[in-house]
């Protein structure tokens, strides 16, 4: 099934479609009539394994690399669902392949919150594996350019001048936000609050047309995987940005687990 739709509800107007490999993509999303998001998706979920042994080599580097399968048309189970809830509207879709099962969610709240989430369940191949969902956001807050990226560190928001990798250290502002994108013109902001168990990190890179989608987390052998491979030394301040939120979810027979950030739009008066 491949479909394209527009939803206008709960102060939001957004479009969505099912992709081949990046789950449900939401695009051209507006909150209270103002542009927030050009495009957001879940380009891939990789899975790493930690073999379950108690031998002396247990601390040795992992033998096997990661693997992944696309969340999209070929793994979709049933239809993409659109449902209202008290104070908002949500999209959900289930994906499955063998021992891996996922439910992708996009929830939109009427107070400006947006939840791009992924629920992970299923047994996997054994109990020792880590899931790495990669969410990609191209926020166009009140226009594409004239944005900045900030990271909460050392007790305050720090402006970031250059592309880079920004892991969650446990430090956050009073509302739990760790990263934010600010529009200089309107002073509106997009705030990202990680799930405290996501072991999350954000890659902030300059936007380039067509950089979505790599159709794989893997670039060439021996090279950095995506999105790290996108990170160079380009300036961020005053530019159009793309943010990648990557979670690291450790399977300990405790599934289902829902990864992904809370995203909140602030400053729209």
């Amino acid at each position: 099934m491949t479909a394209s739709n527009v939803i206008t509800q709960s102060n939001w107007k957004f479009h969505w479609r099912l992709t081949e490999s990046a789950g449900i993509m939401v695009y051209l999303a507006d909150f209270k009539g103002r542009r927030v998001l050009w495009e957001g998706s879940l380009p891939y979920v990789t899975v790493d394994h930690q073999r379950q042994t108690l031998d002396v080599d247990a601390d040795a580097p992992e033998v096997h690399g990661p693997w992944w399968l696309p969340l999209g048309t070929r793994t979709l189970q049933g239809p993409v669902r659109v449902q209202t809830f008290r104070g908002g509207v949500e999209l959900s879709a289930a994906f499955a392949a063998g021992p891996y099962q996922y439910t992708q969610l996009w929830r939109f709240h009427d107070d400006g919150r947006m939840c791009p989430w992924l629920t992970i369940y299923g047994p996997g191949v054994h109990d020792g594996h880590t899931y790495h969902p990669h969410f990609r956001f191209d926020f166009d807050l009140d226009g594409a350019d004239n944005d900045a990226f900030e990271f909460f560190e050392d007790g305050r928001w720090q402006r970031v001048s250059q592309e880079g990798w920004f892991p969650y250290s446990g430090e956050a502002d009073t509302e739990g936000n760790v990263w934010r994108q600010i529009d200089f013109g309107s002073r509106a902001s997009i705030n990202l609050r990680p799930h405290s168990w996501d072991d999350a990190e954000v890659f902030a890179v300059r936007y380039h047309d067509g950089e979505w989608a790599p159709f794989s987390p893997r670039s060439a052998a021996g090279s950095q995987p995506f999105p790290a491979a996108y990170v160079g030394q380009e300036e961020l301040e005053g530019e159009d940005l793309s943010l990648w939120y990557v979670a690291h979810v450790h399977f300990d027979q405790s599934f289902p687990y829902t990864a992904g950030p809370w995203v909140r739009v602030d400053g729209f008066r």
Partner: protein
Amino acid sequence: MPAKTVAAKAKLPKGKAKPTPKRTNGKVQAKRGAPADVALADPALFDPLTPGETADALRTLIEDKRMSSMAKVGRYRVICTEPLVVKPPHSLAGHRLARVVAYDYSSDRAVDATIDLDAGIVVHLELSKGQPMLSREEEAIAMSIAVSDDHVRTKLQMGDGPQTVLHYWGRTPSDIAYARRSAAVVFGREAGHATLVAVVDLIDQQVTQVVPAEMW
């Protein structure tokens, strides 16, 4: 949910990514013109390609002279064909674009192309050693190779069958899947736990590893 080793954490210093030469990864080189107004973007440009648009994009790519060697040998797989939308003020903003990703087995390389369906031309072409996801055909081939492999068959338990196929790559150069296009076929009982993993080298079309699932 106690934390375990997370290899990904070690890859970059905090806040300062290791400088990496940026590949274009399919991004269309910017040609700036009119001022940007993303709020006026046409949502229809994001719509899935029609079967005709997909066929048009593939024909245009294959007829491009730069792809003549790939087309002539004919040993390639189309991985994905999806709409691509670029923002204003790019000169291609507002155009109906298709992004075609293929894997050329004859040269062991990835093909990432952008087709302007309005103009009927290839507007961007990148050939690289990247590894795009598996095509549906590659998944089927990997499954077929694994199922018919004698070594795999001797390891299967009663009721085991292929559960899924994943795009796999080795972590170290000693793993043959480090540099060669590979798939992992997971076996197990229907709706049951995985029992066996077979790694298939898609270039030579042979099984290169057979590992009990609990040892993966």
